[in-house]
């Protein structure tokens, strides 16, 4: 359904561009959930926004059912945006404090244009029920809701236009632990019931594991590993994914380390470099715990090691 081919988003001057997204390709089927994982500045949010044409696209194609949306304009672009919706990390920042919940949802339903005027209130009530809120909430305003409820409202609004693709950018990272799970379960249920394609952007691998069937790991604007979720957690094939996984604080891991004494955590040195400077060789080599001389000169290509499991590391076989 969605095919992204060599997508590039550059900022700044043409001679020294900041390569926020640097040649990313992937595809997404209906009813599939794909996780996009990486640290801040890796380009994952920029990529998500670029898919909706909210960022300037330097090169590449984004095909939705074969139509390249990078070339769309005017009414066609508007129609495309109705098919793909985004939900954000801070639900409060994405809700207008002066619009009642009913007004906001009616506006979204009206924009969709497929519901008659008489049926709009009914549709709004359906949407609220679908995200687990009471239909009587239509007269309330965003400030009257808790963080979790606001994220439900954001979800209701994006569902109003009956999208086929939802891009969720860190939808639960601002929520309390006990509320996070409610939203994750809701997102998973809706995705399956409505057969939605879901692009789930997050920095937390443990969260992504529960929602997504396939995962892309990004570093400095590039995909360094892509794999079915179980395969990635069973056997990482890139040193960066390996380090990311070992860095996540985990209850079982922590208790085991306590009992056995030895910590097997890989601590990376330094910070992620700025995407404004290009690094010769593998972009990860300055921080890599497995780097060798070859990594300093030769850029590794993303290659398939097992069915559906790709890695951009010269020495992926040794991991």
């Amino acid at each position: 359904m969605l095919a992204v081919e060599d997508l590039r988003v550059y900022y700044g001057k043409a001679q020294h561009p900041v390569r926020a997204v640097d040649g990313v390709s992937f595809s997404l089927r209906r009813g599939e959930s794909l996780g996009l994982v990486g640290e801040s500045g890796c380009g994952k949010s920029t990529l998500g926004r670029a898919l909706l044409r909210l960022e300037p696209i330097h090169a590449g194609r984004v095909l939705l059912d074969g139509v390249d949306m990078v070339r769309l304009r005017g009414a066609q672009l508007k129609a495309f945006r109705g098919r793909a919706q985004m939900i954000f990390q801070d639900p409060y920042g994405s809700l207008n404090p002066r619009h009642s919940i009913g007004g906001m949802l009616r506006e979204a339903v009206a924009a969709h244009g497929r519901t008659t005027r008489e049926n709009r209130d009914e549709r709004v009530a359906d949407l609220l029920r679908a995200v687990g809120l009471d239909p009587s909430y239509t007269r309330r305003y965003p400030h009257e809701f808790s963080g979790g409820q606001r994220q439900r409202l954001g979800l209701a609004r994006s569902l109003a236009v009956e999208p086929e693709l939802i891009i969720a950018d860190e939808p639960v990272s601002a929520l309390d632990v006990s509320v996070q799970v409610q939203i994750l379960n809701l997102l998973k249920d809706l995705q399956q019931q409505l057969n939605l394609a879901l692009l789930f952007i997050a920095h937390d691998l443990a969260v992504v594991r529960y929602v997504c069937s396939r995962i892309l790991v990004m570093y400095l604007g590039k995909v360094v590993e892509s794999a079915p979720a179980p395969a990635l957690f069973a056997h990482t094939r890139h040193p960066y994914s390996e380090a990311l996984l070992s860095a996540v604080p985990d209850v079982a891991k922590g208790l085991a380390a306590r009992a056995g004494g030895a910590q097997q955590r890989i601590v990376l040195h330094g910070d992620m470099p700025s995407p404004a400077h290009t690094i010769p060789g593998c972009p990860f080599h300055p921080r890599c715990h497995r780097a060798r001389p070859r990594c300093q000169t030769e850029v590794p290509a993303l290659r398939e090691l097992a069915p559906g499991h790709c890695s951009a590391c010269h020495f992926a076989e040794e991991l």
Partner: protein
Amino acid sequence: MSMANGAPSLVVVEQLQVQFFGGAHPVRAVDGVSFDIAEGETVALVGESGCGKSVTAMALAKLVPQPPGHYAGGRVLFGGRDVLAMSERELRALRGREISYIFQEPGSALNPVFTIGYQIEEAIRLHRPEADSRAEALELMRLVGIPEPEQRLRAYPHALSGGQQQRVMIAMAIACRPKLLVADEPTTALDVTIQAQILDLLRDLQKRLGMAMLLITHNLGLVAETAHRVNVMYAGRLVESGATPDVLTSPRHPYTRALLEAVPRLEGAEGRLKAIEGNVPNPAELPAGCKFHPRCPYARERCRVGEPDWEFAATEARGVRCFFWKEISA
């Protein structure tokens, strides 16, 4: 004496109550919290937003602003001295010198118009005017692992990454070799690989300097990896406490149990996580009875009416606040 490791208690909190005035009724942000921290020990205070964990931490150095805050009861003993009864002068000597704090947002705690060096030196000069502050600042920068420390001392905060800013905050916090470091969500704003670096640094410093640490967090994974003992808070109260492995492997309170089930993990079954119904309660509108009962799967009539007492078993150094914990954990 602390129950945990035989080391003498550095901090003892007894029945602490902190209230906030503003609305029609005072908000009981912290209501009867008791725990202790031994010298050199790491104790975690766990809970979700609004549970009172940060207010409790601030109260250790009497840092809750009054008004709107008000210490309504209880005691905080630091090295045997009653903190809440101290004069401003005594508090100034305590803060920064014996207790220091690091917070979630290192960027907002650093002054943007002064160099890193100036700010670290200021922390040293304030408490130890006799020290060679320039040399010590450099030494601290090395201790917290900042590369090219000489250049970095001349830099302004904006030129440093989030991880490096947090290292600078830690350098300032340990400048006077405090006995207790309070770390309030120290890694929440950082990326996971940087988070791992900062945790390693804190653990290493703690060993070298023999400091005690109070770790405030909502992340149970972090607790499992760092804390000797853990206190779980809900709605201004302690609901469970004990040695970390005991609490995390055999939780007694339904809230601890639910939190553990709700945390996404790296291993084990995929599929659905068990959600905790409802929302974190607003401290201004707490329910009657046990504060967790509206969200508790085990709640019965008794829980709606009366509030359970804090039961502390000194023999096993575990506390719990639930009428039915024995049945639930059986």
